[in-house]
């Protein structure tokens, strides 16, 4: 009797949340999957089924491929920069935990992550500005040539990688710090007695022992890298007075297809591809983690 009462309470209590969830999450996800196999131009009532045609077309679409390449470069590039830097930075900050400045270090490192995307991008947009920015001013002052940071296709991608890394660094440092704090202290004392210097301890002990965290941060930064949008929108776009060259990223391409080109089904197919990439990355993470037997 009691169990039935509890059962009904549970169902009733979770129903609202589940209902909302169904509406704002489940339904749209299913819709996206469904739409990806249809053609819809927003205006007509007609949404003909086209099977995998959208996908086939995508892989021949240069703009999409361009977006995919850019996004992948940004995601992997940001990860490649963020991981080693945040690991080393976290190691040093952890080493100086007893310093009176440790609070300052942790806060300062994390502030770029806290500042919302757009103001941060604005800050960097000025720095990278070819005609007015201090970066070029510094380069010229040192005798080099001013570079078209936000115009050149290669350079603008580098700028975005830089911006994304700068923002993600704090997050990485934070997670690594938690990792460092959970490392067994006696293992490091044993290493010290065995003759390991600080650097050797770091390389032979900390890095291998922090592998699970490295894996986690890698995947998280990769996934968020693939979803990059705001930074590209602000930094290297020409909707600002200080012009830049538009860097096409996946999300941008997707939204463009949906709302500017009126091809919703096509855009949905892009979304599905994005989803597949994210799922694959997550699978890989789980696989690698399980392979090592966890910890």
């Amino acid at each position, binding site marked *: 009797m009691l169990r039935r009462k509890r059962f009904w309470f549970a169902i009733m*209590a979770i129903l609202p949340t589940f209902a909302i969830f169904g509406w*704002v999450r489940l339904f749209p996800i299913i819709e996206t999957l469904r739409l990806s196999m249809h053609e819809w131009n927003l205006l007509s009532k007609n949404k003909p089924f086209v099977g995998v045609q959208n996908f086939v077309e995508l892989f021949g679409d240069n703009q999409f491929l361009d977006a995919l390449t850019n996004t992948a470069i940004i995601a992997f590039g940001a990860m490649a920069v963020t991981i080693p830097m945040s690991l080393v930075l976290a190691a040093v900050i952890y080493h100086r935990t007893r*310093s009176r400045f440790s609070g300052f270090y942790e806060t300062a490192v994390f502030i770029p992550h806290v500042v919302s995307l757009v103001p941060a991008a604005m*800050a960097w947009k000025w720095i990278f500005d070819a005609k007015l920015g201090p970066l070029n*001013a510094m380069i010229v*002052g040192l005798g080099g040539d001013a570079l078209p940071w936000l115009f050149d296709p290669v350079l603008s991608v580098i700028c975005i990688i830089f911006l994304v890394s700068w923002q993600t660094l704090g997050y990485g440092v934070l997670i690594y710090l938690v990792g460092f704090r959970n490392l067994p202290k006696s293992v490091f004392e044993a290493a010290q007695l065995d003759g390991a210097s600080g650097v050797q301890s770091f390389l032979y002990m900390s890095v291998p022992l922090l592998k699970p965290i490295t894996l986690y941060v890698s995947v998280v930064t990769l*996934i968020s890298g693939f979803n990059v949008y705001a930074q590209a929108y602000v930094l290297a776009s020409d909707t600002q007075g200080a012009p830049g060259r538009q860097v096409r990223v996946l999300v941008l391409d997707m939204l463009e297809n949906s709302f500017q080109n009126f091809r919703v089904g096509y855009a949905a197919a892009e979304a599905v591809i994005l989803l597949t990439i994210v799922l694959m990355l997550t699978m890989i993470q789980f696989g690698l983690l399980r392979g090592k037997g966890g910890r």
Partner: protein
Amino acid sequence: MSAKARVRRTNFMLDIALFIICILLLTPLILLIANGFKTPQEMLVWPPTLFPKDPTLQNFQKVFTETPLLRWMFNSFAFAILSTVAIVSTSALAGYIIGKFPFRSVNVIFVLFLATAIIPFEVYMIPLYFQVKALGFLNSIGGLLVGYLVMSFGIFLIRQNVIASIPDELLEAARIDGGGELWIFWHVVLPLLRGPLAALAVLAFFQAWTAFAWPIVVTTRKTSFTIEVGLANFQSAYTIDLSLLSAASAAVMVPSVIAFVLLRRNFVEGIAASGMKE
């Protein structure tokens, strides 16, 4: 040099290095704020100055009186607060149920939450947009909210905490004492969840405050922009006035930073928890 002195010297060098790195990390933001105080003319000077020669408050004045920035701030704030309330309440209740009521149907629901947790919002926001449009919620706080009513991670966080720190015996005792389920949730469970709920609230607020892709899709009218969207689209009305732009960005940025410095513990707790969800 003795071992002790050597250690002290290394620490000193490390401190210096860290200091420099931290300052470097913060430099772009400092420059942004500095730019806000420059006159528009000074912004166009080459080579650019780092700090204003002739600091002025006119940009900030303009930003608050002549641009919709205040309106945008209101939008963002209302959106973030409402989203936080929604997320915290749904997560608390759902997390509690999933954690302490292991019925089959509840577990099925949990698996569904789990399965969709890693799917980024950008993937399914287009159909959601059409939903919102159909309901006439475009360009409204409601429309913004629709995307940010629940947070899978929030549900997991509460579930973890409920399992880890609320013993079954406590609930049983309360039931025996005659407490109704809702009463138990309100008076027994919630107070014990204060810490994680606070961390979650900070996280949810931050998520809504900094959201970009969804707001930019849902809002097309200038008065309904959130701060992020408004700033990003600043240009169309205010041409090449970088100092004004910087002032606006700075005005948006500074409260976030101050809030972070004050709430650092909760923030860090929330983010660290999201890291340990594995």
